[in-house]
């Protein structure tokens, strides 16, 4: 006999590990009254692979491929953050051309990460065509990066001390053509998505994040810039060769999903500007520091190096005790903080809005679980 439980009003649902809108294996435990959510609790750990435990058994070079598998969408920024932290520990100085190559490839990787987010996010909202356009652009971009780094997704291209592979002319002409082509595509995305009335109705005034919440939850990246705080580590804590380029930090005003979308799309245009300026001012000279020790054995000490990835601030905190293996590496990942605000944003919103909010946070699950 089916017993009707009259007193229990909320219905518990698993927006579980295998769900198209969770971009990986994130599980959100929803308690709902009809369509409205009363409590949402993200359960993470389904993608936990133990990067930090591995770091204690590997020397500094062996851990490099791991950094690319933490956030595989913007792997080069994680390579850069880790390599700069190690360079600070050992005291290596990367030559000018090496820094420029790092900036060019990292910005290209940022565009490929934003393009994938744009496609996947609109797929969550139900639009199928944009992901085909985005992946088409992304494939062109991956061809460029594939030429010099050798891989399409999990790059292991930077080394402590510089870059092992130099740019060739075909890469430079290819990149210039790609920049020109992508600029024309932005107009298509604008007409196809930004002015789409369904998209605007689904994203306007939904998932609003105030600036106090940004401080309390430690959010970084497009989530913070969407709420009007111009916090971008490339500007606020300039590293590598970024001071030599002029680019703008796009910010939203209300902090709803539409603002975060606009911030990410504008960021792609700024990245194109950076790439063009970097290609124009590309100095020649060595790409690797002269005497990079064969076995990296930094002195005792600790370092915290922050880098701006597509999702926010990636901080690499290394504690070294003079051994060839790091004593402890803590990877401060942006999506961990960005996702911790979901329970507060999700209270009495619709389930469809929760999917939109989750997509606007741009979550990469193995990055949260590390």
């Amino acid at each position, binding site marked *: 006999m089916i017993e009707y439980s009259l007193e229990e009003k909320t219905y518990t649902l698993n927006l579980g590990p295998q769900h198209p809108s969770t971009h990986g294996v994130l599980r959100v435990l929803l308690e709902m009254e009809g369509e409205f959510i009363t409590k949402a609790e993200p359960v993470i750990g389904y993608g936990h692979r133990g990067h930090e435990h591995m770091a204690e058994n590997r020397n500094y070079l062996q851990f490099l491929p791991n950094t690319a598998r933490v956030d595989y969408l913007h792997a080069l920024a994680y390579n850069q953050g880790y390599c700069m932290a190690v360079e600070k520990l050992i005291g290596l100085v990367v030559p000018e051309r090496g820094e420029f190559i790092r900036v060019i490839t990292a910005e290209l990787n940022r565009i490929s990460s934003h393009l994938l987010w744009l496609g996947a996010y609109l797929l969550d909202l139900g639009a199928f065509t944009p992901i085909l356009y985005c992946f088409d652009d992304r494939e062109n971009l991956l061809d460029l990066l594939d030429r010099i780094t050798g891989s399409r997704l999990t790059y292991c291209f930077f080394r402590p001390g510089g870059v092992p592979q130099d740019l060739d002319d075909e890469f430079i002409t290819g990149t210039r053509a790609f920049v020109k082509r992508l600029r024309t595509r932005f107009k298509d995305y604008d007409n196809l998505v930004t002015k789409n009335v369904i998209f605007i109705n689904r994203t306007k005034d939904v998932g609003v994040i105030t600036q106090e919440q940004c401080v309390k939850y430690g959010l970084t990246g497009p989530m*913070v810039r969407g709420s009007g705080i111009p916090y971008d580590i490339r500007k606020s804590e300039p590293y590598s060769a970024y001071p030599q380029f002029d680019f703008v930090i796009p910010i939203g005003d209300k902090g709803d999903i539409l603002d975060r979308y606009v911030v990410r799309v504008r960021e792609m245009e700024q990245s194109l500007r950076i790439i063009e300026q970097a290609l124009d001012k590309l100095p020649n000279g060595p790409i690797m520091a002269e005497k990079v020790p064969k076995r990296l054995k930094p002195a005792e000490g600790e370092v915290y190096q922050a880098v701006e990835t597509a999702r926010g601030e990636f901080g690499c905190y290394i504690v070294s005790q003079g051994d060839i293996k790091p004593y402890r590496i803590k990877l401060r990942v942006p999506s*961990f903080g960005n996702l911790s605000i979901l329970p507060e944003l999700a209270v009495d919103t619709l389930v469809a809005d929760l999917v939109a909010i989750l997509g606007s946070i741009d979550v990469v699950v193995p990055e949260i679980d590390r």
Partner: protein
Amino acid sequence: MLIDKIKQALAPLNLEVADGDYAKTGCHLAVAAPPDQIQGVAQAMLDEGCFLASLTAVDLRESFDLVYHFANFSELCRTVVHVPLGKKKGMPTLSAIYPGADWYEREVFDLFGIHFFGHPNLKRLLLPEDADFHPLLKDFGASESND
């Protein structure tokens, strides 16, 4: 300058505040605080508008060292707060001041086994619920070299 305001804010707690060597360690201010002062420090940092960038623990074999990193949106000033914990595995929580610290503390509890008093729901975050070990402790197999 933000760095001076933070020093004034931390002055009443009479902790040892040192100017971090930014080029070497990436932090402008290095603070050492005992465990029970940490809520005072966090409240002072929040009043200055700093956010909690990262919270982690380092197992120094015979004692723990909790490391808090604070940063600020408007002005560049990275503060690192070291909290030597000795061998006892307990700390007051920060989740009342920084709701973002809730998950960080659950992760440190999960991987190190350090309890945080007053935490709303201190249970495992990354490992499965029935796991009975703390992987990032030094005596959990990190010692043998396997390369």
